[in-house]
């Protein structure tokens, strides 16, 4: 079981009579800028609450469960993720600390950097990284948390086409290997079709659902 939205209304931004995003699968969300994609994602993570309707995660109403505990299971990565002053390793470890988890070994940290194709040393200054590298570092940080469900808001917006394909492929492979639920906002239908089991198209606050090639 993954996410289920029933009669969800949020201000005049979203109006979703019904939407299911299956657990253990990859859902890609696409839509124009300002269509409500991020708002939809924030509802799943309970960073905001719907004005009407219910958002269910694994059969639990997200508005009636401990929000911090929920966010530790359903982790979201913002489109413009934060990087704090310090080394690459410190930026990875702070995520675990925020989520109340034990620190990871250097080996694990190095592995996760490979997963996101970030060829940097753990002792490098994170503030010196380029925009695309920072985005991958932040992605590595959330992958390290190994949540049940991962919500990624345009995780590859600052990457070139080739790196984007590589990184998303790795993330999807990793999620599928552990049967994690992955919900990703991506900027192109091509990308969505390539990787998604389910494609959700958000248009003016309404959603349409299409099968992805991966799920076909």
């Amino acid at each position: 079981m993954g996410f289920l939205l029933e009669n969800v209304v949020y201000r005049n931004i979203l109006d979703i009579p019904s939407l299911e995003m299956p657990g253990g699968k990859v859902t890609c969300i696409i839509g124009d800028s300002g269509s409500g994609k991020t708002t939809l994602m924030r509802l799943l993570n309970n960073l905001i609450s719907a004005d009407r309707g219910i958002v269910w995660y694994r059969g639990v109403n997200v508005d009636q469960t401990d929000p911090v505990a929920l966010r530790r299971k359903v982790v979201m990565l913002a489109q413009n993720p934060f990087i704090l002053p310090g080394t690459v390793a410190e930026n990875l470890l702070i995520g675990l600390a925020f989520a109340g988890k034990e620190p990871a070994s250097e080996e694990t940290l190095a592995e996760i950097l490979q997963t996101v194709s970030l060829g940097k040393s753990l002792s490098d200054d994170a503030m010196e990284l380029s925009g695309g590298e920072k985005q991958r570092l932040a992605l590595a940080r959330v992958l390290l948390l190994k949540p049940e469900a991962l919500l990624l808001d345009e995780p590859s917006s600052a990457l070139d086409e080739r790196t984007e394909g590589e990184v998303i492929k790795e993330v999807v492979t990793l999620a599928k290997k552990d049967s994690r639920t992955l919900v990703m906002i991506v900027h192109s239908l091509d990308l969505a079709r390539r990787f998604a089991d389910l494609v959700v198209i958000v248009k003016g606050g309404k959603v349409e659902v299409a099968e992805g090639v991966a799920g076909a």
Partner: protein
Amino acid sequence: MNGVIDIGFINLAAGYLLVLVVAGMIKKRRIGKETELVIAVFRMTVQLVLVGYVLDLILGSERMWMTLAAVSVMEIFAVLNVYQRVQVEMSRSFRRVVAFSMASGTLLAMGFFFFVILSLEPWYSPRYVIPMAGMLIGNSMTGITLGAERLLKGVQDRRDLIEGVLMLGATPERAVRETVNEAFTAAIVPTINSMVGMGIIFLPGMMSGQILSGVSPVTAIEYQIAVMLGILASVAFTVFIMVTQGSRTFFNSRSQLALPVPEKIAKGTL
């Protein structure tokens, strides 16, 4: 030298000549602040004359309720002053926290100061309580103003960062920890700095006043040290309560950041 030289009305009036000189300077340089200057001097004069009479009444009576009333009035004016001076918009719940922290922090410090350090007899002795309370409350007011402004601005500026941290499963308290600590530091630094320069760069007002009124410098210094410690505790208590409790008002019961939503998020483009 014994006793204090009474300045007298005529001599005091001569003091206002200094104001005229300053006003003339400002006018000549076209700084354009002469009206504010005159109003400030006028207000200072009227306020001090009035407070002089009120203090004369309170000190003469030695009544507990009068002391308590005077301290309450000081607390209320201090809180109103904070509301007026903080330039960032405060929510109703944040304002309540400001009032609560001002009252609880200063009372805590004053309690220790009057009962333990001074061992006052009676505990409400207005000659001690009123001037000391004034100093503790006044400094705490400045501290709260600095701390509140820094905290409110810090949370507004770091909204994306705080939400980014919440998204990872951090508690609201953890998500604002750095902002809260910075606000606390900003509020307490002036008090710490003032202690560093004290006695070398400047002689504190209370000590100077006591020396002028014939108290031995050693006694005056004892009081000054005690007052500085009291001020430090009072500022630290009030600001600590304000920043820790105040930071909770930024979140709702769902641990969501509940500040006014900026356009870009409201439109869903973020």
